[in-house]
């Protein structure tokens, strides 16, 4: 997509569920839960990310691509064929839903990078190679947009109410162990489907409710590390920050959350010794990665799911647990709609992450 989109502000509803034992459920529950929070959206965007849905292709990158023209598909097809082994591809299945109109062409590819191409490019890891290809398609190739590019996962998004989006993509026919959903209330029409959430990067999927008041500096900080924030959505910034901190700077997730919703000086002053030195250094070095302003975020990745709030909790987020399933949502009602008797429901404190891990060997 060769376009610069205006930054669109939005409020939202979020929910995520994850089974620690890797038990897979179909998408009906998540559609029900996100539909409960209908009032948090205005029909201008909804989306889902699901993990564990492609067990038969689990070692391959699943590319979900939107095309707004045949020309876009021709160019992208050629690019994919040149750089990747494609084991299967085809239309992403959909069913007609009244409220979803003018869908772009939705295509899915299961791919592995060609070793020769990787060598040529000088990129050492498959992840980085895929990332580079996705960035290239999204920012350079016309009429093409990669919705998701992770392994054994996929993103499904559209302009519409989230419930309708879920039915449109037949999510009831997919089985995943982690489901994340987003219902959006943008302040103006996004106009295209790529602007909906979740925002993804490799196997990261981010749904986000909030407006980043520190957007300007977060973006400029990311640019120093080569990220291009062209979509102008706040969620894109969130996803890139997580990628930078966790994947590239190899930060433990808990610490990355502490960077993005850093503790107050008054609290750091009260710590002692090593803990204080660490927190102090984190703020000194990563001040530009502090995400200021209201947000609640849920992000999924290969090994689990995490939710956290801004440092003064200006957007709602509750968490719940039933047996080995973890829930995180904007509203308790959404959790109880699909899990009427949770073992525990709690409101995480501002900035304190809820971190769910899949058991070893599950994913």
């Amino acid at each position, binding site marked *: 997509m060769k376009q610069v989109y205006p930054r669109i*502000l*939005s*409020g939202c509803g979020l929910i995520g569920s994850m089974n620690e034992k890797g038990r897979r459920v179909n998408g009906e529950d998540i559609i029900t839960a996100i539909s409960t929070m209908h009032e948090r959206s205005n029909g201008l965007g909804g989306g889902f990310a699901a993990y564990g849905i492609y067990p038969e292709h689990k070692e391959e990158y699943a590319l979900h691509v939107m095309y707004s023209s045949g020309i876009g598909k021709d160019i992208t097809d050629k690019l994919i064929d040149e750089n990747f082994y494609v084991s299967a591809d085809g239309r992403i299945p959909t069913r007609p839903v009244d409220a979803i109109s003018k869908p772009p062409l939705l295509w899915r590819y299961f791919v592995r990078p060609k070793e020769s191409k990787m060598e040529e490019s000088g990129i050492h890891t498959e992840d980085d190679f895929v990332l580079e290809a996705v960035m290239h398609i999204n920012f350079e190739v016309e009429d093409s947009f990669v919705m998701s590019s992770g392994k054994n996962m996929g993103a499904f998004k559209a302009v519409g109410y989230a419930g309708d989006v879920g039915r449109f993509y037949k999510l009831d026919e997919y089985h995943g162990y982690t489901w994340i959903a987003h219902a959006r209330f943008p*302040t103006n029409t996004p106009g295209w489907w790529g602007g909906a959430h979740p925002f993804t990067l490799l196997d990261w999927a981010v749904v986000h409710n*909030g*407006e*980043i*008041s*520190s*957007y*300007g*500096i977060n*973006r*400029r*900080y990311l*640019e*120093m590390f080569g990220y291009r924030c062209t979509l102008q959505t706040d969620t894109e910034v969130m996803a890139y920050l997580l990628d930078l901190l966790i994947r590239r*700077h*190899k*930060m*433990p997730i*808990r*610490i990355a959350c502490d960077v993005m919703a*850093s503790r*107050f*000086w*008054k609290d750091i002053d009260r710590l002692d010794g*090593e803990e204080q*030195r*660490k927190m102090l*250094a*984190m*703020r*000194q*070095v*990563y*001040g*530009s990665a*502090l995400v*200021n*302003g*209201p947000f609640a975020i849920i992000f999924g990745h290969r090994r689990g799911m995490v939710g956290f709030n801004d*440092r*003064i909790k*200006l957007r709602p987020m509750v968490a719940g647990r039933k047996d080995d399933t973890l829930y995180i949502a904007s509203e308790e009602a959404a959790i109880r709609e699909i899990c009427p008797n949770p073992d525990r429901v709690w409101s995480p404190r501002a900035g304190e992450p809820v971190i769910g891990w899949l058991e070893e060997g599950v994913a």
Partner: protein
Amino acid sequence: MTTSLVSPRFKVVVDHELCCKCKRCVIGCGWGTLTFTNRVVPDHSKCVACHYCVTHCPTGAITVQEHPLAYRYNANWTVAHRRDVWKQAETGGMLLTGMGNDKPYQIIWDHLVLDACQVTNPSIDPLREPMELRTYLGRKPDRLEFDAEGNLLTKLEPQIKLEVPIVFSPMSYGSISLNAQKSLAMAAKDRGILWNTGEGGLHKDLYPYTDCAVVQCASGRFGVHAGYLNAAAAIEIKIGQGAKPGIGGHLPGEKVSFDVSETRMIPMGTDALSPAPHHDIYSIEDLRQLIFALKEATAYQKPVGVKIAAVHNVAPIVAGIVYAGADIVYIDGFRGGTGAAPNIVRDHVGIPIELAIAAVDDRLRQEGIRNQASIIAAGSVRSAGDIAKAIALGADAVAIGTAALLPLGCRICQSCYTGNCSWGITSQRPELTRRLDPYWGAEQVSNLIRAWSLELKEILGALGVNAIESLRGSRERLRGIGLDQVTLDILGVKPAGR
């Protein structure tokens, strides 16, 4: 009176009905403007409008007016131009002045406006929520490393804590009085910020305030010794000054009293000359040597900064300084103040700080080294609004000089170079300096920092952020009004309405 071609600039008007003939004004005036023969008699030609007499007259009998003498209007030959020519014709000398550039160049601060939150993101009330201004100056690594347990493995280089992103600009003992320096030092300690010795060394009375002092190493090397370097919070190599880029300093022998001589380590009564360049720095690699010589001398325990004037190529110059190993770069815009500078240089050399910050911040980001040094911006910061804008453009902190002297009574009469400051700020005459009570001075200055801190917190709250680092470099929160597109591009700021 006088046969000079230069007519008086001001007129002192004494209301003799109100005057109680206490002579306080006569004794108070450092300029010898007022004498007493049965009643107070002014010599208008000597008045600089410092308002010392006006402020201290018990009956409010004195006012100072612009001299009403009319000059034939000429848009080209302004009165200021004519006066300068007359003065030079009479003296054959270079004209000196004090304080910052007073010419009506466009002031970019006044063409920038800040954002605020409405509906989609909430503003934050600083009276109810924490609002953080704390800032650390010093070199930061590109990233931190942790072990699997989340323990921090990286060791940071020294960082200096500022409770507010404001420091006092360097003003040497010599250019200002000891009592003025004491006022700033005490205020800095009180507010958790830094004061700066300037290039005049560190008077022995000020050693209790070294934990919040930056000590300068300038081209004259005045007062530089191991104890001086190791006492400070940070060290600063002074290359240039906004008011006089490329120009050295000259403290006349009359101002080199016993104490000044002892502090600067030069003979009493001799002129203290700071060469224009450092005689051991003729290129960037020489600067690197001095930076590391100072780091060696202080066992790598102190950040070393470099102060330069904002000149045309400021961006690559600063990048070079950062590559040379500086931990802090202090950039002084062309409106920055001075104790003494040639008029012609002050008014015509250098570039505005607003553009310099933007160009430097951009360049350091392009080079991927923005984290390696903190940027201090100076060169006329007049309010908390200017501070917020400087930080949004990319500065880590600002330095204030003129604004820190105004609380001591300074009226910006621009006559610091004469040594006659009636307020005792820029004089070394004991009868003048002793009237500046450093405890009063410290409270005045400290109050100003407190007031600006409150204002900054209010601005952050309106912007919906609760930490200053979320505004730093966030040019998205600025808009320009009445700036041309090229200027906007350099500033990286959109026009208002977009």
